[in-house]
């Protein structure tokens, strides 16, 4: 039997959901793989929700908002755009094909375009196969990575960065300095990597006592990179030295006293 991908969609009430309605009224046929969740604005789509979609078995996630300048909430879609760009970046960093998250803008009058977007996305996801196939990852590995990404996306740092991005990049700060998009993106990527690795380490240490090398092997990273994170996590009081086996220190999560 042919692989039928599962696609989760988030549509805003005013434009893209209406475009889906119009596609219906116009009887534009498209593949039945999409399941739509209606939100009032694409800005409501929390990156955490996108990751949850993948965790729940979506092979693709579709987020559609109004065209720029047409947002019912005037600027919601600009924020959605930045949030989703960040989410795509995150997926890329954790080794998941970022094309599985597709973001676009359709007006309430573009029923035909809506149908073709769904058609094209469905066929692209079909080619990629089920989540993990194109990525060459076992499904358990995909889940672990996504879980860590989701936790990192719930954290303050990334949410602050993406929330402030529009203001920082478009306006000047109090010192009359403007941050370029490239500079901002660099900071964002560094932070994503940092939070992601930290979260993965914390998840690994949840039920295990592990050494730096053991963690490095599991995460396929250099022991040096892990050691830096271990030092940092220890300093923050997130983990502690558990025991020393032979000459190798092992760590576990800080126990709440």
């Amino acid at each position: 039997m042919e692989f039928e991908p599962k696609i989760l969609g988030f549509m805003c009430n005013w434009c893209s959901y209406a475009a889906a309605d119009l596609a219906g009224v116009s009887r534009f046929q498209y593949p039945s793989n999409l399941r739509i969740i209606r939100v009032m604005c694409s800005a409501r789509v929390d990156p955490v929700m996108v990751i949850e979609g993948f965790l729940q078995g979506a092979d693709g996630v579709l987020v559609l908002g109004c065209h720029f300048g047409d947002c019912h909430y005037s600027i919601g879609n600009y924020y959605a755009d930045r949030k989703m760009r960040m989410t795509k970046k995150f997926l890329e960093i954790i080794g998941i094909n970022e094309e599985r998250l597709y973001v676009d803008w359709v007006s309430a009058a573009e029923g035909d375009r809506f149908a073709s977007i769904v058609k094209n996305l469905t066929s692209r996801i079909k080619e990629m196969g089920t989540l993990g196939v194109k990525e060459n990852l076992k499904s358990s590995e995909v889940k672990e990575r996504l879980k860590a990404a989701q936790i990192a996306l719930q954290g303050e740092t990334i949410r602050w960065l993406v929330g402030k991005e529009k203001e920082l990049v478009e306006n000047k700060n109090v010192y009359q300095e403007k941050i370029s998009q490239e500079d901002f993106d660099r900071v964002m990527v560094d932070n994503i990597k940092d939070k992601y690795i930290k979260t993965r380490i914390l998840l690994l240490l949840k039920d295990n006592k592990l050494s730096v090398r053991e963690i490095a092997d599991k995460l396929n990273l250099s022991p040096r990179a892990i050691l830096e994170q271990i030092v940092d996590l220890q300093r923050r009081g997130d983990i502690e030295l558990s025991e020393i086996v032979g000459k190798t220190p092992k760590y576990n999560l800080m126990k709440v006293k």
Partner: protein
Amino acid sequence: MVQDEPRIGVFVCHCGTNIAGVVDVEEVAQYALTLKNVVHSQTNLYTCSDAGINSIKEGIKKYNLNRVVVASCTPRTHEPLFRRTCQEAGVNPFLFEFVNIREHCSWVHSDEPEKATQKAKELVRMGIAKARFLQPQEEIENEVEPRALVIGGGISGMSAALTLAQRGFEVYLIEREKYLGGVLRKLYKLYPTSQEAKSILEPMIRSVTKNEKIKIFTSSVIKETSGYIGNYNIKVETKGKETELKVGVIIVAIGAKELKPKKLYNYDGENVITQLELEKRLKDKDPQLSNIKSSVMIFCAGSRIPERPYCSKICCMNGIKNALILQEINPKINIYILYRDIMTYGEYEDNYYRVSREKGITYLKYSPEKPPVVEKGKVVVYDKLLGEEIELPSDLTILSTPLVSPDGEEELSRMLKVPIDVDGFLLEAHVKLRPVEFATDGVYLSGCCHWPTDLKGAIVEGYAAASKASIPLVNKKVKVEPIVSFVDEEKCIGCGLCESICPYTAIEVKQTEKGRKAKTISASCKGCGLCGASCPEGAITMQHFSNEQELAMICAFGGEK
């Protein structure tokens, strides 16, 4: 909060054959019964018919339902009906959830009935998952301050202010300049009636000034605005002095200004001038004007070009009118109008253009690829229709430049959180369905700040904005949909991210006993959910689209029953 165990009733619609012709609705209804908390499930031929509505009401009574899910068409058309049905049967209208299995399913998968049925089942499963977490909401009602603010004392602002005052409401009219009147003050005669501008302006200013309900602030600018429909707080600065005003509605009528060209067609303000500068000379009865033997007017000067692509709408008529006036002053004058396209739509307007040709005004078509060249005492133009270059003597060259956005527009748009379009003008809520209104409730617009318009348009829009603005003023109360955000004070750390990103200034961080905390101003909140999706602490719940509800839907998407 509903603490009771959810008792969900599911109503699957045949919609005649629209849904049932593709989707096996009986199978969908049977499937719904297997899901958690579903105590009743049935199909209806037409759920929106009287019979369908009654079956929902009876279902609610018979099975003691506290949640209702209808799987039929689209919430965009039928949600209000089913919400009302629930309310009439004693269930809070926000305990209703809509599942779209027609527009999003049967109509778009009509050749795949099995897949469509499977999809309908899953969509219903997702709807039920959300329904479990629905919370009752109460509609929010707010008092309206029975006063209006009109920003801009041009003809449009004045007609709006006067209309509202005549309806009995107090109006504050704010004008940047020393005098009321706007651009109209600078005009000599008006098309197509050729009457003097002051014959309209002066009586208008008299009525506005005399009206006791209108309080006029000239030489004044808006310094600060806060609040929401019904309750706006405004700070106005007049020559260094600040006044605080409280109003219920705001009309923006800040007009537009003529583009002053820079280095365009050798513009010097002396021998090459703009139409508005010509108007001043006409008004001042400049004796030089009768000595002009030949004059060239260049239309579309600085408009309909890549950096300013729009047509300013009024310039053709205005130029033709001034050409005719110059001809009246000196009947022997030669006037050449260099145009790209002539826009004189309207009953009187087009006739005006015809008459001007009959009276001997010469029209030459140029193309933007070969624009006219203005030299001392002459203009050289490539006539597109003749295909030849022509040299025209010109004692006075007049440029028809477009109207552009006025000074102070950007600050005002930031303060009121109203958008500006690509051409720099203010953008109304919807070009056809909601003219003269902004997407922000309680703020309206009229006149040239929205798009270049002539006198009639400016007055009509003033009336329209005033009549729209009077709706909340007359009702004295505004109802707000309770789809608003809610801040959990315990979790909030007062960082202010939500406050800085909210498109409606609907969330405020204030000092409380527990420190700085954000709080939603429900009357301003439009429910986009941006704050909820952005809060670094997860402290903000977007009611009716909460994390709990959304995640439940996603889990149901994944198969959770």
